[in-house]
């Protein structure tokens, strides 16, 4: 409907009134309220007239069809009213940074729509446009090397790029046909997409120009020439083949100004007031780490086997400077063959490899993603084909104090710091076990150090339970009981605290209890996870021992 479309396009959302009863004529039934000024604002929008014109056009067209007046139909179609959303984009995002901040949903939506089939659910043009914009954005990310994090979730693949200092996160579904749900209103989604495509187009334009790239993107002519002979004439339509080749993500883009290879521009130092040398150093270090991260795969040549999802891997590898190719029959844009001796990493997702070529690593695709998230090329041994993979951790989680940290993450952090916990322990399992125990111990220690608050809480609980038990009043021939002074002190303090809590005001007590409940729950969850992990590890170790015994017997 018209108001809904207007609200979506103009970004108008309902408001929660301060006095619900007053506004709602005394009833508390849930209703949505819009501000009156918002509605007036919508009425002033020139696009309302365009929508009305379009409605009239549709009516006229239907009438002409009904009367079989084909010349009228043609004339009407020629004069089909169109509208543009440029001014709305500008109005909603007055600065470019605003637009970048709101890019998450736009990207996710475009990537979703670009995977829709070309039939049924929405206009084919929309799908094609989404596909084009998504590919353009991917190409920009590759060209600017701004990808930071990738995460393979069970929902889809999350990417996080840092575009002009703004983190932009989007999710793409795995490449499967959609089972279109019936309880989803596609018209709402289409309206959103209409706005998002406009926004993304303008953003892409600006981003390309900020990198001195041509927009609409052109494939670099040198690379083009290299590509031409290989692909031949397998792809019939020229207009489509261009997009296809672009979407292959294997070739670089043409620039307005020829690229000068001066990437190593020295950052000038601007000493900011109130900034110590340490902070400056840290900043510099961070900058260096970032540069290093950007060139993670530089000089590596990857080959993707055909069962590997090509697009995400090609995107990730290319955005960290690696070269990538695949089987020629798989997709357009392959640059080298599987037999190329210069290939360093062969990404494969099968349990076994037939006829291995010497001189390259055969790895599972998770290695690429884990390496990107770890900001270093991880040791390859864990990722050989057919090997049980180490867990894939989310790069978006930053553990605060008191949170549960999975041991893999601890290992990873150690690796990043430059220690290598694994090397010496690979020879014998027992050692490994010991080390695992060490790890556990370490973890516990850390737990202890980190979770003093938790301990306090626990102690309080204990004391409560203790004091609940009735004291047996009996005089028995005595043992000398050593009075633990510290403990007594603590007990006294906790009692004082309890008494003080009794004197809190009702509202504050409620708040305090809520906060403490949240804290306790957090601790409980962390403990639960740790316990689960421990149980799992012990089970695994016992199984190992058993199998070892079976082997010996």
């Amino acid at each position, binding site marked *: 409907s018209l108001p809904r479309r207007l609200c979506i396009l103009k970004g108008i959302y309902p408001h929660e009134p301060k006095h619900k009863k007053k506004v709602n004529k005394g009833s508390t039934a849930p209703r949505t309220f819009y501000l009156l000024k918002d509605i007036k604002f919508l009425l002033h929008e020139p696009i309302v007239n365009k929508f009305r014109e379009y409605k009239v056009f549709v009516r006229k067209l239907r009438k002409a069809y009904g009367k079989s007046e084909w010349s009228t139909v043609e004339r009407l179609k020629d004069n089909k009213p169109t509208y543009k959303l440029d001014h709305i984009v500008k109005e909603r995002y007055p600065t470019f940074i605003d637009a970048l901040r709101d890019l998450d949903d736009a990207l996710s939506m475009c990537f979703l729509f670009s995977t829709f089939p070309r039939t049924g659910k929405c206009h084919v043009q929309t799908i094609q446009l989404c596909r084009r914009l998504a590919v353009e954005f991917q190409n920009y990310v590759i060209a600017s090397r701004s990808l930071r994090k990738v995460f393979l979730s069970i*929902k889809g693949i999350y990417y996080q790029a840092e575009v002009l200092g703004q983190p932009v996160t989007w999710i793409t579904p795995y490449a499967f046909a959609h089972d279109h749900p019936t309880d989803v209103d596609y018209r709402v989604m289409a309206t959103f997409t209409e706005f998002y495509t406009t926004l993304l187009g303008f953003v892409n334009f600006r981003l390309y120009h900020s990198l001195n790239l041509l927009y609409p993107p052109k494939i670099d002519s040198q690379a083009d020439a290299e590509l031409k002979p290989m692909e031949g004439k397998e792809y019939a339509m020229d207009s489509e083949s261009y997009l296809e080749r672009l979407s292959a993500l294997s070739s670089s883009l043409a620039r307005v100004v020829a690229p000068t290879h001066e990437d190593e521009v020295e950052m000038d130092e601007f000493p900011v007031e109130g900034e110590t040398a340490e902070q400056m150093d840290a900043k510099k270090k961070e900058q260096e780490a970032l540069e290093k991260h950007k060139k993670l795969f530089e000089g590596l040549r990857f080959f993707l086997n055909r069962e590997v999802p090509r697009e995400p891997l090609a995107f990730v590898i290319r955005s960290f400077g690696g070269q990538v190719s695949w089987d020629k029959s798989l997709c357009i844009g392959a640059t080298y063959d599987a037999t190329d001796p210069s290939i360093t990493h062969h990404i494969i997702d099968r349990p076994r490899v037939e006829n291995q070529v010497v001189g390259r690593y055969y790895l599972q695709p*998770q290695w690429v993603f884990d390496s990107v998230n770890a900001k270093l090329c991880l040791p390859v041994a864990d990722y050989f084909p057919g090997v049980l993979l180490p867990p894939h951790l989310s790069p*978006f989680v930053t553990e605060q104090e008191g949170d549960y940290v*999975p041991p893999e993450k601890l290992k990873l952090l150690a690796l990043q710091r430059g220690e290598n916990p694994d090397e010496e322990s690979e020879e014998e399992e027992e050692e490994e076990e010991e080390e695992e125990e060490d790890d556990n111990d370490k973890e516990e220690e850390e737990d202890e150090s980190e979770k003093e608050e938790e301990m306090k809480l626990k102690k309080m609980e204990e004391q409560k339970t203790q004091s609940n038990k009735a004291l047996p009043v009996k005089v028995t021939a005595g043992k000398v009981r050593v009075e633990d002074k510290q403990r007594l002190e603590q007990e006294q303090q906790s009692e004082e605290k309890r008494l*003080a809590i009794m004197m809190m005001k009702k509202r504050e007590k409620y708040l305090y209890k809520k906060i403490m409940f949240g804290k306790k729950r957090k601790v409980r969850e962390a403990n639960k996870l740790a316990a*689960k992990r421990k149980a799992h590890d012990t089970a695994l170790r016992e199984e190992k021992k058993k199998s070892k015994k079976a082997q010996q017997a």
Partner: protein
Amino acid sequence: RTVQDRMTGADVTLTDEQVELVQRLQKGQFGDVNFDPYEPSVDFFTHEVMIHPVTNRPADKRSFIPSLIEKEKVSKLVHAIKMGWIKPRKPKDDTPTYYDLWAHEDPNSVLGRHKMHVPAPKLRLPGHEESYNPPPEYLLSEEERLAWEQQEPAERRLNFVPRRHRCLRAVPAYPRFIHERFERCLDLYLCPRQRKMRVNVDPEDLIPKLPKPRDLQPFPTTQALIYRGHTSLVRCLSVSPGGQWLVSGSDDGTVRFWEVSTARCMRTLPVGAVVKSVAWNPNPTLCLVAVAVEQSVLLVNPCLGDKLLFGATDQLLEAYVPPEEERVQPVQWVPPSAEERGKGIRLIVQHSKPVKQVTWHGKGDYFASVVSDTGSRQVLMHQSSKRWSQAPFQRSKGMVQCVSFHPTRPFFFVATQRYVRVYNLLKQELTKKLMSNCKWVSSMAIHPGGDNVICGSYDSKLAWFDLDLSTRPYQLLRHHRRALRSVAFHRHYPLFASGSDDGTVIVCHGMVYNDLLQNPLLVPVKVLKGHVLTLDLGVLDVLFHPTQPWVFSSGADGTVRLYT
């Protein structure tokens, strides 16, 4: 070669030609031997364009003269163009679809409303549990899974079940992907947005800064003595003004007298019914205890301590001279029988209804009793020396829970279910009505200074009134978890205690300043535990020692405990 004909049932022998025909058909060839499927096709019409017409008919005349209909149509079009009804086609809009929209970022052109705009919050980023290959501890166990399935979809903390896949190849499509995008869309345009200030406080800061209990000593801290002997719940306690003797009344129909310091039961007085209330005469020169049993109040001389003292008491009671004319009294003063006299009972005040409470005036001559009645005679005042009683109120103002005398001034406090009324006995008028903000007042105690009152209630609240401040509670303390049964003030120390059904006695420091500008300071200092819950009842009565910072408590478990 012989085949059965199904139609006739007769056996037919095939000839050579027929066999050959069958074989040809089986091979997929034409049945006719002579048919050639590969003979060259014959064009019925030539593909070459012919230059001559097919027919020889001459052209029509109408093909040479201009058409009138067309002329009409053309003229119509011309007319329409002249009148401006038909417009030329619009030129194709050749401005590019995308251009640098933010080329001129003008901060002045930003609408005012944009500053009020609340940007939509970003979606939560995924955690480890959403990984296709999560660490094993994030996978749900069987019962967690069941719990997850039974939860409402809106209540679930995770909107998916974490799963582990061996390799990337084995990861299936996520069936709710489109749903989730759609839900996000709905959130974006249908959810009201609000700026909410997050409460970012350290919980430690919320705890009020109170003086430490250690600095507020003395107060009772440990259980010192248990007075055992009663076989049923001990309802009431009272202590002699010197602090040497303790009297307790119980449901087992006895009143016991104890020595405080040794916990020895000095005397047991069987009265044959539930003892509702006992009160020791506050006058130190008398040795007299009022005991409320069923419909009567017994004045008992326990004959403890100084012989002179209890002898004097007896003498005082004997010295009564009945007046000449009989006055109409609401109660009957009955002298006890010889047997009862032997037990120590000196006087019996017979009421018409069961007596709930009895309390002495500070001078020790008058005492008041509360009768469980609904009429105007709920509260009765008695003068023990003149054996004279009267009902002070003409109308009832609700169920009276307890009454109390002001320690120094002629005021009388009457607590009904929700209010405490303060009467001036001299002027015989109502001076104040305190709203307790509680559902049902259970007990009341008056500060020895006389300006502060505490009320315990069955809805586990304790209301502290400052009579100078207002008629509403200065503070409502919700320390207990269950109904409060009794409250008490200490006579000298700034202490008050409350006993509750949860089996605890909470001792609080309640400092009242002489300076009128300074409000009382209330600090809980100790939670005393010890009584065992029986029949869902805990502590029934609390009482302070008149001189020491000790507190007595009687409980439903049949014991009286002393905390020092």
